[in-house]
């Protein structure tokens, strides 16, 4: 089974590396929060204008000097007048051989006396300096030679930016483009929505149940969590003092025993068994000390069944349970409870907890080499210490 597990992990890891090497980093989604809904009640053809030799800056001169994403770079009627001899007094005027000037040409449904539908173009909540970018316009806005009315789809996505700004994949650089609030965290709450990572790649998706299952996203290399979230949000929950009701719903104090015995979910991700669990169990009368009515000596009041921890044969059930999920045991028992029988000190039962072949195992040697204090809790005699002695065990 262990071999199968290791093999599965190797296969999946290999897929990961292969996937990365083939990764297509194109992102085609335009965030409705970064680019709020526009209203463009206009008729316009970039294709026709470009075909006639117009340059981008002819109509968008401010784009070469703009330093803020808030700047409105859409040409006004005045800019159009450079070529289109618009006469508001003659809204239906047609001049043969000249660029069209009738109001309906650009404003569909125009009718005299009726207010013209307004262009609504909310600025994106971004920081952007057009003047600092020397690349051709098409690099970010695409080829407009086949585009009539430019919409949000002609605005760059985050992937467009990251094609050059590779730092943008690092959370420390998110605020280079996104608006930060006091303290340096990104502003995520806007009138038109909340800024949440939109794409479906690892580390960015805030899908359903994300609050309960985000371990993989949080531990991945280059996770961008801290760009928006203060670290106090993490420790307030993981090292918390208020029960998170979404994770430990309702009567969890009663029902948690099932999950704790299983060891799933991993209680130790947030709780230290030898302080948090032991302290509470002791106080509630379930531990080995405190005001408990349980008594291991009295069979009528024993928490565990007879023969649970037998030194003279019998079922000795606790051994298997301890090997299987020791963290469950350690939520009530301290080391001293185990030492009562398992210590190698003279006078005690000297029940060895070690499996066969322990002294020749790599684990024994590593533990002994790393911290012999642990061994000294049970073994005192020099002859019993160390894993390199030849005595059979």
């Amino acid at each position, binding site marked *: 089974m262990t071999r199968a597990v290791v093999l599965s992990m190797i296969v999946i890891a290999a897929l990961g590396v292969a996937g990365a090497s083939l990764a297509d980093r194109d992102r085609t989604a335009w965030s409705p929060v970064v680019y709020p809904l526009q209203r463009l009640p206009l008729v316009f053809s970039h294709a026709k204008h470009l075909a006639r030799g117009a340059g981008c800056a002819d109509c968008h001169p401010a784009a070469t000097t703009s330093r803020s994403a808030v700047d409105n770079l859409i040409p006004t009627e005045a800019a159009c007048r450079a070529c289109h001899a618009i006469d508001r007094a003659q809204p239906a005027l047609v001049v043969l051989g000249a660029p069209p000037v009738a109001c309906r040409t650009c404003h569909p449904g125009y009718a005299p006396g009726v207010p013209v539908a307004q262009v609504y173009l909310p600025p994106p909540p971004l920081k952007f300096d057009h003047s600092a970018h020397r690349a051709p316009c098409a690099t970010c806005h695409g080829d407009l030679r086949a585009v009539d009315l430019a919409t949000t789809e002609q605005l760059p996505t985050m992937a467009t930016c990251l094609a050059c700004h590779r730092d943008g994949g690092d959370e420390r650089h998110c605020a280079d483009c996104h608006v930060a609030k006091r303290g340096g965290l990104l502003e995520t709450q806007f009138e038109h929505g909340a800024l949440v990572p939109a794409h479906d790649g690892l580390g960015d998706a805030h899908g359903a149940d994300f609050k309960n299952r985000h371990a993989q996203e949080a531990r991945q290399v280059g996770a961008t969590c801290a760009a928006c979230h203060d670290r*106090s949000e993490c420790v307030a929950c993981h090292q918390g003092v208020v029960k998170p009701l979404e994770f430990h719903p309702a009567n969890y*104090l009663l029902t948690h025993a099932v999950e704790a015995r299983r060891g799933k979910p991993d209680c130790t991700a947030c709780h230290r068994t030898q302080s948090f669990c032991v302290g509470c169990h002791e106080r509630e009368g379930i531990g080995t000390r405190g005001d408990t009515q349980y008594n291991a000596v009295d069979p009528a009041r024993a928490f565990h069944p007879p023969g649970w921890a037998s030194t003279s044969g019998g079922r000795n059930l606790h051994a298997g349970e301890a090997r299987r999920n020791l963290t469950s045991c350690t939520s009530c028992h301290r080391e001293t409870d185990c030492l009562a029988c398992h210590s190698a000190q003279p006078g005690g039962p000297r029940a060895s907890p070690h499996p066969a072949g322990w002294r020749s195992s790599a684990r024994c040697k590593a533990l002994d080499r790393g911290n012999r204090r642990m061994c000294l809790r049970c073994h005192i005699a020099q002859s019993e210490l160390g894993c390199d002695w030849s005595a059979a065990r």
Partner: protein
Amino acid sequence: MLRAWVAAVVVAVLALAAPVAHAYEFWLRMQTTGQAYQLRDYRLVGPDVFLGRRRYTQTLALRIWDVGDLAAARREAHLPERGLRIGWQSYLRIDHDFGDYTSGQIKLPAVSVRRDALDVIPELGDSVASLELLYGYVELAGLVDDRLTIQIGRVLTDDGWGTRGLDGGAARFELPSVPVAVTATAGFAVRASSPLGLAAYELDGTSGAACQEYVEGPAPGTGSWQLIDRNRVITNSRLTSDYESCPQRDVRQPSVGVGLATSRIRGFGAELGYRRTWSSTVGLIGPVDRFAYPDVGLYPNDAGQAPSSGVDEERLWARVHGELRAGAATIAPYADVRYSLLHALVDRADAGLRLSRGDHTLEPSIEYFYPTFDGDSIFNAFSIDPTTDLRLGYQRSGAVAIRASGWLRIYHHEDGAAPVAGGGDAGIDHPFGAAWRAQVDALWDAGYGGRRIGGSAQLRWRPAPELAVQGRVITLGVAPDDGGTATSARPRYVTSSTVLGATWQVSDGVALHTLLEVDDDAIHDLQYRAIATFDFAFIPEP
């Protein structure tokens, strides 16, 4: 009168001599939480007794940004911040329980007087007037052409399976020629005994109570373990345990770590890390030999074999993740593994694939877990059997969110008998108009540990932007499987709970959360829990 004049002159001089004050941009979030709830004190005879918990918790998260306005010029010019930036981040917490859970007294069988619960159970000290700094550090960013970041103070370090505090520093350096960053941490591990420390950062496996020392006998091997400080005068402090001392848990634990990680690569990430934490061995307990026989230390020294120091953790970990785009679908595989050099084994590993297409995500994964403990803990000798989890999860995002998952846990056993546990859960979250949302969840699991089946229904109402109300009803049937670990079979029961909560956003960034929970089951009486939190700098959820 003369004294007043002198004072006035001194104040005036100080005011004139004071440098120009700078106001720096800062962000803070302060939460004041009051909780009142009950815990059962289990009785074999007679009805259960309820212990009251009345907790007051005050937190303060603080960020000060660009101290010295070093990046102000670029910021005002709408340019990305570069160059040295100095900042501060911290999170401070006061937690105090003044209910009888901590302040009550306990009658012990062999002691004639009732003792403070805190003296009998020192672990309760975590809940009594604890003042904790969970992190607090100065950050110097943008050094060396924006490649070096340094944090100094109480920093956080994480290997992917847990966060610990470190009193010291951390540095990250981006190598100039390759997309790799080097990280390093060094300092002393935060312990419960550290200034403003907390037990939650301690390595697990050794208790803060029942510490004993080995007292040598007249001949080697004839000594015994005895409680430390058993003869000292009891000071009867109400805030700390008076009876027990654990000097090995008070020594400092130096900790160092290094890591190599990919940087500035999208669609792929990999990391290799190493961390080692150790501590010196407690020698004499106190400056004076208090015993008639040689008192040479905390550990058996009959043959002089106590080491001068021991390793508490030594781990090596690696992780890799990637992302592959195949048409409209995305495949995101990942794998993580941690090897404990102290135990000479892999103690954590997982791998999975996240397959996404549009709003749909499917994720099969496998996880491996081998319990390991603090290097000082004898639990390391007892923990032998690992577990393997197989999991399949599905999510549908969007306005109507759906999720479902199934899992199977295999408990390996050296004799081949491998019990299993497994289960599944599913839920749907559906909006109704602009103001209402409903969520329904169902759960079933069985196998090792017991069987549970149940579900919950939740209704959320937002009548106004500044007010949100929610109610939830949960019912769960439980059939515990103690596997013969308890004297009497645990009874089956059905528990139901009703939760009512509300959030009122008083003004921009200020909110009040309240919650009332009532639990009912066939075994016990009604239980109540009430929570109220005043949330300053409240962040509305999306």
